[in-house]
């Protein structure tokens, strides 16, 4: 047997380098096209699709909007979103638990939406895997529904840390589920100090106007930053 001693070769490489490079390309492309990109992550059953359907309907009067939806093979959120009459395209991830930048890139290929003001990317319902993958988005929203429990941020600190904004959904059910909003807010601030939080109900419309206003403001802020 050879007794060759292994030697150490330094490499220093980010494992997700390919994804990061692709995300950077996408971000640059969106910037050049004037498209503001928002991604949504949550666990299954947070009302993400209902919220997105509402957002699309509310923005559509004033802006050109579209959505990409990451679905496991068993789901079909895209069909529901099509009711908003905005262009919607499904990305079937098969058994994969998250979207990657290359999948966004592929989905955009040959998808003729015309110029867009907003593109929404609904990630697969999962609070673990999507956190590592940059999709080239400008803002990442993490959703927490009042039916889930206030400790969700403490159980999944990484996804909250990777997101920019938290949205508490199904606010209309808060009383019925005895969801303690102050505790939920404190938990969010513990894992991500300073995080902006919205509280909405897609059903009653509570908090939606403020949320929509925030989106259009963020888009304007990016546009003027680009103009300078």
């Amino acid at each position, binding site marked *: 047997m050879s007794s*060759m001693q292994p030697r150490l070769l330094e*490499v220093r490489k980010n494992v997700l380098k390919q994804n990061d490079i692709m995300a950077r390309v996408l971000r640059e492309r969106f910037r050049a096209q004037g498209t503001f990109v928002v991604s949504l992550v949550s666990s299954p059953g947070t009302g993400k699709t209902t919220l997105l359907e509402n957002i699309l309907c509310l923005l559509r009067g004033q802006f050109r909007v579209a959505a990409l939806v990451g679905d496991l093979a068993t789901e079909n959120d895209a069909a529901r979103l099509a009711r908003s009459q905005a262009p919607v395209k499904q990305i079937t991830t098969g058994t994969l638990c998250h979207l990657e930048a290359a999948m966004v890139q592929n989905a955009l290929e040959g998808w003729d939406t015309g110029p867009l003001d907003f593109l929404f990317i609904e990630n697969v319902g999962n609070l673990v895997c999507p956190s590592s993958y940059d999709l080239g988005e400008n803002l990442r929203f993490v959703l927490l529904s009042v039916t889930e429990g206030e400790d969700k941020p*403490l159980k999944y*600190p*990484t996804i909250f840390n990777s997101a920019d904004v938290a949205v508490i959904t199904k606010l209309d059910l808060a009383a019925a589920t005895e969801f303690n909003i102050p505790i939920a807010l404190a938990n969010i601030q*513990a*894992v991500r100090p300073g995080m902006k939080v919205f509280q909405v109900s897609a059903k009653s419309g509570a908090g939606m106007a403020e949320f929509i206003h925030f989106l259009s403001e963020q888009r304007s802020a990016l546009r003027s930053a680009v103009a300078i």
Partner: protein
Amino acid sequence: MHELSIAMSIVEMAQEEAQARDLRVTAVHMKLGPLSGVVKEALLSSYGIACDGTPLEGSRLLIEDVPLEVFCPTCNASRTAVSMQWLACPECGSATPSVIHGKELEVTALEVV
């Protein structure tokens, strides 16, 4: 569970580096932060599977845990955060969102023959 696809990326990356130099990899050294989104145990168990049928079969994965380091604006210094669930300075208690280290998911070195 996305650790298998991460493990496959690691194997692919290591093999590319080694092949370019006409070497064989016997071990991969990497840094892993608690905010990387990757679970160490799952990655370790996926690694063997990812190596199967590749030139890295039989190689080891050596993971260095990176502590979660934040910048404390009150102390004006970098500190190891209280925990992932509480991003705060352990000295003065100030909450801070500025993560300096802890998101690492990188290959640092290869043991080659």
